[in-house]
């Protein structure tokens, strides 16, 4: 049964410097509060994994938590570019950022392989693109029955995966619905996992389209109302589209970003490498 703890305790216990950490949530249910807690606790040298590094990863990268990014699409959805991500890749600020770049299909299959206890996944992908020239984790594999050649990608098995969900019960059983993305796979692929939830309830009323993760498959649950803001939690609150638009201005300038970290993530400082 997953233990129910505070967000600060969960991050302190589960996320260590140098870890490979995945925060997942496809537009919906992005664990922003957990991301801020990682910044607040000053974690360093993380390998950050995420299909769609958007604003929360821009913040983590800008704050100097990351050594490496494993991803398939890094942008501010509906707005434009991620300026902290760009600044790290183009100008190594606040430090150099190694990248390992895949397609969505590849990343999804890497999580599936990780969740399945397999060392690799197979897909029809990457053929003819320039990705395999720059990404070491794309290989060719031959079908033993037909001789056909396909792409293989290694399993993703993060040290910690963090996702946000609508609800958990007191045994740590987790319930989410709406767009469920790759959250189940991310949690099952990881050695340790944290689920932040809108609320802890006595009984999980069934909801159409729900996905339930048994408490015994989750390490820690933390109750964090609005923990996905500015993304949304279906049934709880809407996406704060203004925040995403405002982020463009905040993140464009290093000093504005520094002030944002100091003021918003309560006193955390950006240290440059």
């Amino acid at each position: 049964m997953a233990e129910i703890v505070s967000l600060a305790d969960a991050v302190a216990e589960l996320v260590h410097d140098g870890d490979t950490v995945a925060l997942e949530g496809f537009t919906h249910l992005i664990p922003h509060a957990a991301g801020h807690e990682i910044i607040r606790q000053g974690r360093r040298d993380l390998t950050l994994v995420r299909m769609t590094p958007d604003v929360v990863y821009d913040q983590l990268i800008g704050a100097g938590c990351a050594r490496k990014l494993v991803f398939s699409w890094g942008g501010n959805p509906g707005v434009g570019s991620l300026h902290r991500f760009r600044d790290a890749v183009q100008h190594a600020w606040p430090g150099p950022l190694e990248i390992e770049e895949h397609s969505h299909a590849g990343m999804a299959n890497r999580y599936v392989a990780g969740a399945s206890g397999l060392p690799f996944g197979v897909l029809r992908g990457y053929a003819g693109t320039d990705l395999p020239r720059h990404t070491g984790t794309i290989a060719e594999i031959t079908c033993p029955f037909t001789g056909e050649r396909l792409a293989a990608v290694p399993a993703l098995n993060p040290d910690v995966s963090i996702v946000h969900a609508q609800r958990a019960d007191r045994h740590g059983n987790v319930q989410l619905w709406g767009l469920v993305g790759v959250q189940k796979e991310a949690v099952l692929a990881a050695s340790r996992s944290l689920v932040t939830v809108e609320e802890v309830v006595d009984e999980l009323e069934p909801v159409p389209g729900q996905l339930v993760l048994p408490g015994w498959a989750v390490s820690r649950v933390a109750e964090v109302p609005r923990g996905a803001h500015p993304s949304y939690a279906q049934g709880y609150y809407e996406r704060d589209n203004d925040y995403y638009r405002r982020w463009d201005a905040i993140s464009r300038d290093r000093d504005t970003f520094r002030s944002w970290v100091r003021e918003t993530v309560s006193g955390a400082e950006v240290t440059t490498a």
Partner: protein
Amino acid sequence: MNAAARPETGYTSDEMMSIAAARALTGGTRCFVGIGLPSTAANLARRTHAPELVLIYESGTLGSKPDRLPASIGDGILAETADSVISVPEVFNYWLQPGRIDVGFLGAAQLDRFGNINTTVIGDDYADPKVRLPGAGGAPEIAGSCREVFVVVRQTRRSFVERVDFVTSVGFGRGPGDRERLGLPGAGPTLVITDLGILRPDPETCELVLSQVHPGVDVDHVRESTGWPLDVSPELTTTEAPTEDELRALRALTTVS
């Protein structure tokens, strides 16, 4: 949408582009809707002449029927109005990869004469790019597996290049036979819709050729906005101007969001 409506026509070139793109989607076409401009066009088509259009988003929705323009490809309205909400791995593995989708609808930062798409980096050095773009997302496999691909992109010399700096998604590779050699099942980019006109691949050379200009657009202007010596189809036609209904529907869609 950038630019105000031109006084002489009453619509912007972006509006013309979205409407031309929307018109390309008909009937019960299963359309994989990429991020950005394609979503506007696909939603416009569904709201006007193609109510049966099946919209599929990589965020995990089959058959979304939003009554406003989704703010992103993961907008809650897409899940709430879908026939079925599925996981992201399922979208790619069970629905896209086996070739169940008729049209992949993509945007592009750079596009080359063979319809290859770059959304990764601008500049020659991947490790030290001039501009770091968002990356691949779902596009490489959308471009590979959909039966055909429509690209919606604003046409400039910077975006329409001789050869993309980075092949994120394959169009026709380096020319005829390349898709087959790579084992890509779909027909590739059969239609490129821009703010100036429409390009189609030459069936022999696979090179994108101007087949249609939007009303009031000069062919020379299109040539100047293209980074390779652009061929023009001998059967060049002019796009029908947006109807009042189309413009009203488009503006209703984009204003509400």
